[in-house]
């Protein structure tokens, strides 16, 4: 009885895993990601370094005076005539010319400087120039008021928030590491949520296509004489799910290795940085730069992998079964081509997209009300709960979420198998979702 499910699952699994295309995709994807990260690394490096040359004509006299003491001040000064500079700054080798007029009043707040540039400068460089100019003037004014640098420094305060519950004896639990954990958690959460989203579509549509092909080529007609439709469907779901797990397992080994290799050969490209990119969560680059690579790696190793990995796999399987059983039901209802399928897929796609976009608010507030709701609601939880795992969600939420999800898996398989068994033997007419609901009531 159930051994037939395994016979079907075995065929579904082996026929896919032995395909050349599977082997290629499985091996080339990590390579592709590594390559992608190299390219992104170059782009980000190129973008962050300002190679724009700036020349300043300073009529206040203050800026140049103070800046002369700062070896890191990135801009040049010129004393040439304003009209000359306006004309010739680019022939002198500069991209941008900034003119700071003299101050009418030495205590004035606002100072309007103007820039000249052949090309439109980026907002970033303008802001950077503004803040550097302001800094010089502020420093000058403080000196003029005879405020001693030491006194000034003694005014400074740096409040840093630490996790009060952290073990002070744990070397990895400095204040910085606490923040680092959040950054890494966000990155990891984004990555996991994104992967679940991909998994649902990749393997879901794999199931759907294969159900459709079996129906249209009339293979099911032969199959249902020896296997019950639910066994056929379950076998397929298990087989394709196994393919997914295999692929993930290979990627889980290959991708980190390749990324470490990339990171070793390309300074300035951090795996965590890439994760940020993928999850689309903006993290202040300054915040990441504050940590050394070793700290990052230590923090990654400090995550509760013994919890995160198994729970992730449970949610992977739960999400896979919920959605791919729906895809199987849709595939069974198709009677001509994939075009018909797109229409039937729409409602599923919308739900998955909602869950995916919930990732962003959830990751910025991983234990908020929305996060708790979305990680319990079974259509969202396979995407949302894995994303929260790195933020230590309460135990009861994980357990409750799994219970609700597994119940839903059971319910969906029951529901979709009732649609499937009618759909696979029904030809000719286009099927609407309303009609599929009627199939639920058909007697066996």
């Amino acid at each position: 009885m159930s051994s037939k499910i395994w016979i079907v699952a075995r065929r579904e699994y082996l026929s896919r895993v032995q395909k050349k295309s599977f082997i290629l995709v499985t091996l080339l994807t990590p390579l592709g990601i590594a390559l992608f990260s190299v390219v992104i690394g170059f782009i980000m490096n190129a973008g962050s370094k300002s190679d724009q040359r700036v020349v300043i004509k300073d009529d206040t006299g203050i800026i140049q005076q103070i800046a002369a003491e700062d070896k890191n001040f990135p801009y040049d000064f010129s004393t040439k005539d304003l009209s000359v500079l306006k004309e010739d700054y680019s022939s002198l080798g500069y991209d941008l010319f900034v003119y700071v007029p003299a101050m009418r009043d030495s205590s004035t707040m606002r100072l309007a400087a103007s820039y000249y540039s052949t090309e439109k400068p980026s907002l970033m460089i303008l802001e950077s120039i503004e803040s550097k100019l302001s800094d010089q003037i502020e420093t000058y004014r403080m000196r003029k008021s005879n405020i001693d640098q030491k006194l000034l420094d003694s005014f400074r305060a740096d409040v840093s928030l630490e996790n009060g519950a952290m073990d002070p004896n744990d070397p990895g639990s400095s204040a910085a590491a606490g923040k680092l954990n959040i950054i890494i958690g966000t990155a990891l959460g984004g990555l996991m949520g994104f992967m679940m989203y991909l998994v649902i579509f990749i393997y879901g549509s794999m199931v759907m296509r294969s159900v459709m092909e079996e129906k249209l080529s009339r293979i099911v007609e032969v199959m249902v004489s020896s296997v019950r439709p639910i066994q056929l469907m379950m076998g397929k779901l298990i087989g394709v799910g196994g393919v997914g797990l295999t692929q993930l397992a290979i990627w889980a080994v290959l991708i980190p290795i390749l990324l470490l290799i990339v990171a070793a050969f390309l300074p300035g490209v951090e795996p965590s940085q890439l994760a940020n990119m993928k999850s689309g969560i903006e993290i202040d680059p300054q915040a990441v730069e504050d940590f050394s690579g070793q700290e990052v790696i230590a923090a990654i190793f400090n995550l509760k992998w013994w919890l995160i990995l198994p729970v992730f796999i449970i949610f992977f399987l739960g999400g896979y079964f919920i959605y791919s059983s729906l895809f199987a039901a849709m595939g069974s209802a198709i009677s001509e081509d994939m075009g018909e399928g797109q229409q039937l897929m729409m409602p599923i796609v919308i739900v998955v997209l909602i869950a995916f976009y919930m990732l962003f608010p959830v990751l910025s507030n991983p234990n908020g009300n929305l996060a708790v709701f979305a990680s319990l609601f079974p259509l969202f939880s396979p995407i949302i709960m894995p994303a929260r795992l790195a933020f230590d969600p309460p135990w009861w939420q994980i357990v409750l979420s799994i219970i609700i999800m597994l119940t839903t898996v059971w319910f969906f398989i029951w529901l979709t198998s009732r649609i499937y068994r009618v759909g696979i033997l029904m030809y000719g007419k286009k099927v609407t979702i309303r009609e599929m609901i009627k199939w639920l009531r058909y007697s066996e």
Partner: protein
Amino acid sequence: MSILRLDKVTKRYRDHLAVDEVSFEVQPGTIFGMLGPNGAGKTSTIRIITTITGPDSGQVYFRGEHLNKTHPSQMGYLPEERGLYKKMKVGEHLLYLAQLKGLSRQEADKKCKIMLDRFEALEWWNKKVEELSKGMQQKIQFIATIVHDPVLLILDEPFTGLDPINSNMIQDEIFRLRDKGVSILFSTHRMEQVEEMCENIILINKGKNILMGNVKEIRNRFKEHLFQVSYKGDLPSSFSGGLELVRNEDHTATFRIPDQDTPNHLLQFLMGSGCEIQSFHEILPTINEIFISQVKGISHE
């Protein structure tokens, strides 16, 4: 005891009655023909027998027991619309289907090879299904249907797309199985095969059972008392005693004799008229003719 008995089986789909109180019985070691035009309800009936769907009302008995989900493992069903996985190898595919019928891997391997050999196809073992011709694929499907030694074989149009040689090969196999005691439910709309192969038939149209019985008995039941005579010389110019000349071509004449009359009268009359009789036989209607007249008769009502 019959292998299969249907008792007033009815199946209704939302907009129409697919099977309407169909009853019949299949005896062990016989070939039972199920005839009907397209859409008559043959496939729906078969799906009920193979427990793919259930009847809305009526009973099905398999070897005297109420039909249940364990019984299909003793049946072999070759559906009319049938496909195979194109990318699979023939041997692998047969093993897969045989294992799904409940055979262990070793058993399946042994039996599939014996079967392929009998169908002169053992060298296909490592070929992909897509490399085979349609007829070859049919053979593979037939093998998959009988590989687990079913006691009831359900064949839905088993000969479509086969050349005469392969057709004969499969027909011989069907006879061989029948002689071994296997019962065969043979669904088709090709009548000449029915006459050749079946002992008993049922004719269904629009879900209803319109005719059932022994093939010979049915042909007798619908006979029109027609006799064909080949002769030398000339026929008499007029006939007495209710004899009617239906056709006369090239020294072969067809007569209809009155219901209560016997062929002897016709012979005596012809011999008395002086023509020389070379052969004489009764013309029974073919199943095809009966089928058409019955189906038309029903649809004209």
